[in-house]
């Protein structure tokens, strides 16, 4: 069966520090991978998606970047965090792509920037 892991689960970082959130998927190959951000009490904002190794599409210009060094690994990074980067970050994957099927989400990483 397929599983998705995100870490760390919780992170408190000072403004200006770097960030690295990792997401890995097990039990499938060539997944489409997504990073979403959820502000408190709000819906999900799509940040990045990837259809293959090294292929990253950015949805929103921001202080963050994403990379996919391996087929089932998706990393969200920042060189210098801003207060506005605080939020709940969710990684997700799907089999079929093109939003024709369900997304499978990780448990999320809660980032607080102080």
């Amino acid at each position, binding site marked *: 069966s397929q599983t998705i892991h995100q870490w760390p689960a919780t992170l408190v970082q000072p403004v200006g520090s770097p960030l690295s959130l990792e997401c890995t998927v097990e039990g499938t190959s060539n997944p489409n991978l997504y990073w979403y951000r959820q502000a408190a009490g*709000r*819906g999900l904002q*799509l940040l990045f998606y990837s259809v293959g190794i090294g292929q990253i599409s950015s949805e929103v210009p921001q202080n963050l970047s994403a990379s996919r060094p391996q087929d089932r690994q998706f990393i969200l990074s920042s060189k210098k965090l801003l207060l506005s980067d605080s939020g709940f970050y969710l990684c997700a994957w799907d089999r079929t792509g093109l*939003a*024709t*099927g369900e*997304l499978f989400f990780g448990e*999320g990483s809660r980032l607080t920037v102080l």
Partner: protein
Amino acid sequence: SQQGEEDPQALSIQEGENATMNCSYKTSINNLQWYRQNSGRGLVHLILIRSNEREKHSGRLRVTLDTSKKSSSLLITASRAADTASYFCATPEGGKLIFGQGTELSVKP
């Protein structure tokens, strides 16, 4: 971009009552999905309804889709305290899944 918009934003009911949440969207779609999120957790897929379907059931869940009105509803029958969560509709746009702001459901025992 924002595709789905849920209504109401928050709903509080007693255990045993039915809960209805609505979703409106803007562009043509080939499917609409509903997800559930327990507090502080990831989202879990509940049900997908295709554009050529008008109604779909899954256990205590009933979803309707009206493509002429660009709207969908999620009905949870005989609610339980464990149904307390946020519920999101999501629609495809440009090959990605776009989520609404969600309805926060509270079921009181």
